[in-house]
Every structure is written in C-alpha cells, then in structure tokens.
C-alpha cells in the first residue's frame, strides 16, 4: 500500500516536473517536514502561553500605584509593539546573544545558553505579549468602576480585586481580540526563519532549495499546515469563549 503510494508520487513527479511531492517518497525529506511542523507547533504553543501570561501580568502592572512600574510597562509596550518582529529577532539573537553566558564544548565554540530557538521564544512572546497587555487593558477598562469599588468595600486588596473580580470579567471581554492576536502570533513564528530556527518554513525552503521541483508542493504544505494550525487554535478559542460566557454579561 505504502509502496504503491510512493510509486504514484514518484511517477507524478516524473510526469509533472514542477509538482514533485518528494517528501511522500523520500524519507529524509519527510523527516524534515515532520520536524519542521513539530518545531512550529512547539514554538506556537510555548509563545501563546508566555504571551498570554505577559499580557495578564502587564495589564495588572498597568494598574499599579507606582508611576515607575506603569512607566516600565508603557516603555515595554512601545518598544515591542512599534518595532518589526523580524528586526527584534535579529537584534536579540545577534546583539543581545553576545552578552549571554556561553559554554564551550571544544575550547573554541561559544555556545550561548540561550539557543536560537530560545531567543525566538523570548522575542516572539514579548512581541505578542505587548499587544496582549493592550488587549487586556481594554478588557480591564470595560469592567465598571462600581464593581471594583464594591469589591474594595468587601475588603478585597488591590491584587485580590484584580485576580478575582476584574480579570475574570476582563478576560471575557478580551477574548475576541486576544483570538486575533494569537492567530497573528502563530503566523509570525515563520519569521524565526531569519535566525535559522528549523521550523516549517525553514525546512520547506531547505527542501525546495535542494529540489527546486518541489517548490509548489512545499508551498501547498505550508498553506495547509498553517490553515490547520490556526484553525485548531481558533476552534479552541471559540470553545473557550462559549464555556466562559456569563448569561447577561457583555452582549
């Protein structure tokens, strides 16, 4: 069965020189596609989680009493939101990467403790996190002042008010825009290509460089993979949104 499948695509490539689905019949290329896809999934999941955490913490800090703390959050947002993620990746990996501690396995190499994958996670999480802070802030501002005053009257501290009253309500308002931003984040992981993170785009381009005839099939793989990944994310977010719905709250 597998033989016939491979033979079909080998023949298909012979008949159509620009549609060489090489990964279906050459194991090495198949492994590249799978490892790329797996790296993209890992990168997406980790960055989504970190960026949401950054968003929540940032939104909490924006409500801090200290002007310095609020200033720091503001500075962070301006820096990460207003510069291209492409440039951030290069800057983190090449410029900041030089100041991180390194270890040397052979006396010459200086392997930084933060790898290119590590920098990609840091950079992309902070990039999407900056947007998430603003998204959560919009949610926080939508919570009526009177609700907060009520919780204060009940003896909640500021942190407790944020954690138990404001955040659960703000989250529900924020989910639609959060959804948008996380979809964007998943797509932005392709830019990690620039610091040679072996994710799906990197592996696809490697394959079509080695086999120019495989470019169209690889592009197809890219489109389908991202449609599927983003589709799963959106479905999950929608489900979460429905399960969090409070009848009568919002619209």
């Amino acid at each position: 069965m597998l033989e016939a499948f491979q033979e079909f695509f080998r023949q298909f490539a012979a008949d159509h020189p620009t549609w060489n689905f090489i990964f279906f019949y050459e194991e090495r290329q198949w492994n590249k596609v799978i490892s790329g896809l797996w790296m993209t999934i890992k990168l997406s999941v980790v960055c989504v989680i970190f960026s949401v955490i950054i968003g929540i913490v940032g939104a909490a800090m924006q409500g801090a009493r200290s002007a310095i703390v609020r200033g720091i959050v503001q500075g962070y947002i301006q820096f990460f939101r207003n510069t291209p993620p492409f440039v951030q990746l290069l800057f983190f990996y090449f410029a900041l990467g030089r100041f991180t501690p390194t270890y040397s396995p052979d006396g010459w190499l200086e392997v930084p403790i933060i790898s290119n994958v590590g920098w990609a996670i840091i950079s992309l999480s902070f990039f999407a996190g900056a947007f998430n802070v603003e998204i959560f802030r919009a949610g926080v501002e939508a919570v009526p002042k009177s609700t907060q005053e009520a919780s204060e009257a009940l003896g909640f501290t500021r942190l407790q008010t944020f954690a138990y009253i404001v955040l659960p309500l703000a989250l529900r308002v924020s989910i639609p825009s959060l959804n948008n931003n996380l979809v964007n984040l998943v797509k932005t992981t392709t830019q990690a290509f620039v610091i040679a993170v072996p994710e799906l785009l990197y592996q696809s381009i490697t394959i079509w460089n080695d086999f120019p005839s495989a470019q169209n099939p690889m592009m197809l793989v890219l489109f389908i993979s991202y449609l599927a990944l983003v589709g799963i994310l959106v479905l999950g977010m929608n489900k979460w949104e429905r399960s969090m719905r409070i009848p009568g709250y919002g619209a």
Partner: protein
Amino acid sequence: MKTLTTLTTAFAVLCSTTAVTAAECSNDTWNKVMSSGKLVVGVKADYKPWGYRNADGSLVGMEIDMAQDVADTMGVELELVPVQSSNRMQFLEQGKIDLMIATMSDRKDRREIVGIVGPNYYTSGTNLLAPDALAFADWEQIRDKPICGKQGAFYNQIVEERYGAQVIAFTGNAEAKQALRDKKCVGFVYDDSSIMADLASGEWDGFGMPMPTEDDNPWALAVPKAEENCVFGRFMSGMQYNWHVDGTLIALEEKWGIQATSYLAKEQERFKDWLAD
C-alpha cells in the same frame, strides 16, 4: 450534451495548440528585450567579487561585467536585479529577470526548472571557512558539530548526509558569517572560490580554508526554460564559448583579483581554434 461536446472540442483544440507552440520557438524573452531595448539580468549582491555592492552602492563584479558584455553585444541597455540563492530560479521563471548570472552551480534538478546552456563559465567546489585554532584537516572532523551555511546551497545536504554535520542555514551570507564570528558554529560551509576571496580581503585573520575541496561543480548561467533551445539560449551558448576562446573569463578573473582556476585554462585549451597559431 451539445455544449459538452463543444467544450470538449474547444479544450482538445486548445491542448493541441499548446502542444504545437511548445515545440516551436516563440522567442518571447528575446523579442521583448530587443523591442524594449533593455536586458534585465539577475546577479548576486553578496558574493564578492563576482557580484557585490561597491562603496557607492552600485552592483559590480565579474558577473556584472559579463552581463554588461551580453547587453553590449545585443545592443541594449543593462538593468541589474540583485537575487538570492534561494529565489534566483523563481525570478527567472516568473519573468522578473531575462537572464540569470548568479554563481549558480549546474545541477540536474535545476536544469528542469530553468534553461541552463553550456559551456559552463566557471566552477567551484565546497570548502569550509574555519578558525585555525581548531586545526581542521579532514571533513570527518566536523561530525556532529554545528556548521553555519547559507540557504540555497546544494552542498548543505551533502555535508549533513556524508559527514553528519549539523548545518544551521541562514538566509544570507552576512548572517552566517556573523554567526561564525560569534563562535556559534565551527565553520562556514561555502564555495571555495568565495572563501578564498574572503580570506584575501584580510578581514578573516585567524581563519583559513582547511579542508580538501570537494564536489567541484561547474557554474551555469540560465535563460528562461522556454528559451533554452531557442535564439536566446543559443546566443548565450555562443557568448560563453567566445568568453572561453578569447580569454575574457581569464582576464576578468585577473581583473577582480580572483585566484586563477585551472578550469578556465583547461576550457580555453579545449575550445582552442585549430587554425590559430
């Protein structure tokens, strides 16, 4: 039913016409260049001294001189478009450039995509730019070691398969070389000709090219696939033949300070005019 028959007939006629024109030469690119009076050539902008930007930002190099000669011979203006290893064939396929002279190795798979015409104008092999401190002498020494490379080079895969090196392929030369300087890899796998030019530039003290050069592979220029066996392809074959015969390539090599390759001398000998003294 009648519509279906008509459609099928129309389709069959359409198919047969395509089949007929495919066999003949339409010479679209050649005619376009001649009528617009402008030849668009894709060249490298990061491969000193074959194609790079000089101090004032204009593209210069050995391959740019070759492109200029082609345009002069055709009697048209030359327009240069910088291309990357990873997009050069696509630029040609999509008609963004008419001709590609971009340090491309002549590979079987590539011949199916673009119109590669001989004789090959240059050749280079694979080698490693590596620090002297590591005292490399043999390719086997890079097993399981991180090696910087560039996306689009055909030997990345060979180095991975044959020697088990971990190739970290960057999008550009600059990033790969910076990673080597930052000691993120033990070497930069690239064309020996380019590495020699880098070493000669004096910017790589403490680095060398320690490995025996492997996989010597001729370079090819390319015209669009449809032009391969038509006027443009034949014309470029003639250009290359003449560059070999009259010593243009050897002279250009010298002009751009490239270490002389025995390949060009051999080719000149091979194509020698039997009536010449």
